[in-house]
């Protein structure tokens, strides 16, 4: 039991460290629904992994990337509104994944585990994925931080100043795909975006710079993981949802006390 718990905690911390900075960008760039769409395609990646006998994580990363590129291409060629397009892709991808898994003969998968996460089943190999992949994601994110932030503020200005838009965009998509593959293990496909968004939104209340928000979001995420897993062990709760509930409670708490402390987002000039 102890070993399970600490392994789960390590996995959760690894994810929170990633989800903080990346989730901040998801919030700033208003990509919550986009993240959801990518996550929903992950099941298709699992099916692909089984079919091709490759590492399931690789399958997930490949399918997420493919979907991300599809979204970008369709956005520029279709006249559909963004949320309509994402709605179509999101639910088609999820259903396609479920159908594909059902088609694979003789395969019995823990569907609940994929949908809602099974952090207690994290293996040593998974931990390697989480920390190896996580380190790569954070390194790459640090490399594209400045152009990505400028693009987030104004894409037109970034283009005028010669920022490498396409490259930055593609790297960011790849980072999202890797993070989703990692997060799937822990909170499951349906809850992936929550760990990206809730800690970042919580950190927003007290952060005064983009970097502060990214780091604080990672901290909030780690706290949510600790509380959620603790509760999960104590009361035998499903671990993924417990972590998300813990994150939501932290958000509500901070959102509730932030105005009282006068640290509302527009008032930090008063404090200086």
């Amino acid at each position, binding site marked *: 039991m102890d070993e399970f718990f600490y392994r789960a905690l390590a996995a959760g911390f690894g994810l929170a460290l990633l989800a903080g900075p990346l989730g901040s960008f998801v*919030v*700033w*760039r*208003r990509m919550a629904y986009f993240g959801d769409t990518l996550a929903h395609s992950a099941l298709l990646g699992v099916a692909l992994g089984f079919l091709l006998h490759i590492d399931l994580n690789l399958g997930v990363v490949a399918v997420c990337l493919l979907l991300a590129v599809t979204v970008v291409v369709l956005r520029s060629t279709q006249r559909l509104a963004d949320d309509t397009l994402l709605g179509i892709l999101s639910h088609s991808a999820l259903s396609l994944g479920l159908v594909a898994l059902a088609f694979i003969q003789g395969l019995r998968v823990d569907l609940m585990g994929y949908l809602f996460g099974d952090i207690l089943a994290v293996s040593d190999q998974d931990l390697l994925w989480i920390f190896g992949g996580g380190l790569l994601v954070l390194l790459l994110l640090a490399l594209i931080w*400045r*152009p990505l*932030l*400028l693009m*987030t*503020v*104004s894409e*037109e*200005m*970034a*283009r*005028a*100043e*010669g*920022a490498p838009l396409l490259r930055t965009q593609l790297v960011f998509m790849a980072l999202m795909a890797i993070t989703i593959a990692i997060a799937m293990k822990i909170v499951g496909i349906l809850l992936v975006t929550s760990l990206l968004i809730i800690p970042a*939104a919580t950190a*927003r209340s007290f*952060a*005064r*710079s*983009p970097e*502060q*928000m990214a780091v604080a979001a990672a901290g909030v995420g780690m706290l949510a993981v600790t509380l959620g897993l603790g509760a999960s062990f104590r009361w035998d709760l499903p671990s993924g949802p417990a972590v998300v509930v813990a994150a939501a409670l932290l958000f509500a708490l901070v959102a509730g006390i932030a105005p009282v402390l006068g640290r509302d*987002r*527009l008032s*930090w*000039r008063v404090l*200086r």
Partner: protein
Amino acid sequence: MSPVLPRPQARAGTPLIEARGLIVRRGGRALLHEVDLELHAGELLTLVGPNGAGKSTLLKTVIGLIAKDAGSLKYRPGLRVAYVPQQFGVDANLPLSVRRFLRLQVAPLRGDLAAVAAETRIERLLDRPMQALSGGESRRVLLARALLQEPDVLALDEPAAGLDTAGQTEMYELIQQVRERRGCGVLVISHDLHLVMAATDQVLCLNEGKIFCRGAPQSLLEHPEYQTLFGHQAGPATGVYTHHQHGPECKH
């Protein structure tokens, strides 16, 4: 009051930007049709025209943000262009101070932040969040960020859009001061013609992707086509007075 402008010195020498016969098409429609444009150092060139005339397209094409379909575009070697977009707003969820925004540039900063902040009168704003700025403050911050690139050409898309009359006057005065102090070429878009008149050296009037008149602001007032499009706008407010035939639509 706005200072008396020195008219541009002889327009000899190589222009900063020289565009000939620019054509831009999108979806079979010509957005720009055979447009010529020259911008010299120390010159303030204003693009005017009704909505949809192609002003933004011309500005962006001239500085290379939009690809041209035909024509030639020559820059003085080593030319640095700073662009200030019209649409701008920082997402409420992004905690970004003015100081940080000014420093957030792809290339290393060339100018001195404190000096530029004084020049654009934004010293007091440096530690504020971007979201707490008023329209005029936000415009000055954008200008400051562009100036930190120490540009040879300053391209401004409606720098006074959405400001009240006092704010507009202040903005155009600031642009004039910057131009005089730094001697850079300035390319401005405006549809508030009466404010531009006093500030600009040259006006380029666009309609439906074509230039239909160009010249010093004074000389344009008599231009018949200009009268048709802008006659009703060329009111007082600027120091450029003009008599016009009183008609039924006049409000004075």
